[in-house]
């Protein structure tokens, strides 16, 4: 038991921080908000050359073969730097292929993903955005050796940048055992997809997709037709854990900006950092962010240890949502009027953290899942025990 990052983990994290401090100034995130492509090609290519995109993909497919925790640490730094690259969505989809895809799928996708030659995304949520099987209504039918998809996918990250998306569709009526979901790889340039760009608080790239008779070969199905919910749920959990890492990285940076600002901003004849009410708010911001980070690390560690990790992911996301939001809101408070000004950078973090807390599950959804695990199965519970997710 040692919950502190070890030397190798710190090395990777620090290297990521140094690189991003040099290569990813806030002006880049600001510029990309106006950019049609929605990401920085230049930064993406530089990151690719460092091998980050494959860090937790299998070595046999050109990856680094390291635990997902390492990927989480890098994404935490990407969150800190609000790096405008489609890393999170690509990593989430690539890990789904790596954990659940066939040998052929892995062979054709993972080496390219590891090199950074392939941008991907995932598409599960719909107009009912809850992360549960029965919210998936987008229909698909088997037609010969194709799957034909019609329906809506919502809140899809980086669609126009991505070449492939991993999509969950309904191939049979909803049932109690969550059968009837099929997870499938869909090329984003398939005929029959209409994209509508969303305008988000983060001013990043999300889209609503209407699919009308989109045809993909059955060989694109991940696992078996109708049996895709466990893999979908696994993908969502990993995506959520990685998003938590990204949020905590961004929130901590945001808190640090407030602390620095407070040390320099003078009011009533002294730096406002000398006022206890400001100090205590800053202390709380760090305590909250630390809590979110510890929960996230534990979720990632459980994932890497092959233990059930869904409850830990939900714990992390619910806490991260509430407390990182409180952190960036407090940072705005400490900045006074300047934090509201477009030319000042703080809002770049505030808007992203806030938007991200609403993605991949609200606090209520995740707490409902924790409650199911605690209350809907027999036996005495104790903090720190391994809890099996229920639904």
């Amino acid at each position, binding site marked *: 038991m040692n919950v502190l990052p070890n030397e190798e983990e710190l090395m990777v994290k620090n290297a990521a921080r140094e690189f991003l401090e040099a290569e990813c100034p806030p002006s880049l995130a600001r510029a990309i908000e106006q950019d049609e492509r929605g990401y920085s090609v230049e930064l993406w290519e530089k990151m690719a050359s460092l091998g980050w995109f494959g860090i937790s993909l299998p070595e046999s497919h050109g990856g680094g073969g390291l635990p997902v925790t390492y990927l989480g640490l890098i994404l935490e730094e990407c969150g800190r730097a609000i790096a405008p690259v489609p890393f999170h969505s690509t990593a989430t989809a690539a890990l789904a292929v790596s954990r659940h895809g066939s040998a052929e799928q892995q062979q054709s996708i993972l080496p390219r993903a590891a090199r950074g030659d392939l941008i991907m995304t995932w598409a599960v949520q719909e107009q009912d955005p809850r992360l549960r099987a029965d919210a998936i209504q987008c229909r698909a039918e088997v037609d010969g050796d194709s799957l034909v998809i019609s329906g809506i996918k919502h809140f899809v990250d980086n669609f126009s940048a991505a070449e492939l998306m991993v999509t969950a569709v309904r191939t049979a009526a909803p049932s109690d055992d969550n059968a009837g979901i099929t997870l499938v790889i869909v090329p984003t340039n398939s005929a029959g997809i209409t994209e509508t760009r969303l305008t988000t608080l983060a001013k990043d790239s999300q889209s609503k997709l209407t699919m009308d008779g989109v045809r993909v070969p059955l060989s694109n199905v991940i696992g078996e037709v109708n049996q895709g919910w466990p893999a979908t749920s696994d993908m969502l959990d990993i995506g959520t854990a990685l998003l938590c890492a990204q949020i905590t990285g961004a929130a901590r940076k945001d808190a640090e900006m407030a602390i620095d600002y407070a040390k320099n901003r003078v009011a009533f004849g002294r730096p406002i950092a000398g006022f206890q009410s400001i100090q205590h708010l800053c202390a709380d911001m*760090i305590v909250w962010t630390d809590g979110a980070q510890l929960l996230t690390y534990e979720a990632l560690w459980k994932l890497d240890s092959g233990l059930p990790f869904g409850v830990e992911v939900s714990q992390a996301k619910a806490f991260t949502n509430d407390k990182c939001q409180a952190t960036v809101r407090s940072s705005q408070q400490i900045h006074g009027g300047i934090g509201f000004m477009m030319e000042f950078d703080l809002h770049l973090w505030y808007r992203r953290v806030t938007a991200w807390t609403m993605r991949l599950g609200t606090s209520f959804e995740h707490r409902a899942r924790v409650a199911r695990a605690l209350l809907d199965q027999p036996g005495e519970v104790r903090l720190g025990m391994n809890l099996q997710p229920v639904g």
Partner: protein
Amino acid sequence: MEFAFTPEQEALRSEVRQFIAENVTPEIVAELEDTGIRRRGPKTREMYKGIAERGWIGISWPKEYGGQAGSRIDQYIVEEEFARVGITVGGAGSGAPAILAAGTEEQKQEFLPGIIRGEISFALGFTEPQAGADLAGLQCRAVRDGDEYVINGQKMYTTAAHYATHIYLMARTDPDAPRHRGISIFLIPMDTPGITVRPLWTIQNNPPAPLGTTYGDARTNETFFENVRVPASCMLGEENQGWYVGAMGLNLDRVGASRYLISIQRDEDIVNWVKDNEIEGVAMREDPTMRDRLADMWIEGQVCRLMTLRSMSIVENDGVFTYEGSAEKVFAPEHGVRTTETIAQMLGPYGQLLNGSEDAVEDGVFAHNLMGAFQSGINHGSVQVMRDQVARRGLGMPRV
């Protein structure tokens, strides 16, 4: 990162749990609930010997003082299991960490094996009527006289002073030095002439709080020193260095098993209670609002757990706290209060029924917690002072 305990540590945990199941009898529980005797009850003393024989006290201490030279984490595990049934074994409040760090060879020989055997225990004599959070303002005087010191003054809230064998006393040895540099620590037998202990009754006095209550003590004390003469060899560490010696002990007091349990035990209690109980056929476990709040508490409880493990990881790696111990001491007590108050609103009028009342829930523990939980945010560093430390030590913000 490694969030799991080793298989050996899990085995140790099971062994301790089994010992508890077999040895913590209703008679011992009755003794523990009697704040007049606690560890000094005959059955408890007997059991304590059994704990010591198994080498479970002071596991991380050097062998020459009766320890096992083992890991802090093992010690944490043992302390946690015993704390869960209301038994303190070594660790927090024992004075031992500071003795290990700053004591002379004679002092280590004199105290540590005795602490392990359960024969020596300390009351903490820090707080005074005019020095609480601002402890460096303490006025209790110790004046050198030949090979002795003569002590005069008053200590407040000296918990356990009525049954401890010794007091771990902070006194001023140089009134002219800057506040923090004129303080020394003394380890003094409670039966030294001139020491008077008077009870201070707490709001848990009547009815007595059930075991497992957060700050369920019915009694603490005020302790008076009138021309108390002690040999100079009672001093721990160097003269006028007491502030720094004391800070070492306190920091370790703020983290660890009993501190953790104070903050989270009711999370587990209420979830397990709600699983098995209904109020007149109404099952809270099915109410969406209650489920949301229970999950919220549980998640915060996990954060308390992880912050405790972080502190343990730092200690085990021989690291130094910058702000982490203080961060834990902000989040955990306030979490304990939030949970306590949430449970009150879950139980409604049943939540106010005290120990022994008709219809009291779990002997009234939740109601008694409402009188005690907030106390954990006051002592051993109030949450305000702890936030100051996070801001100043952790974040480099200026002293006002």
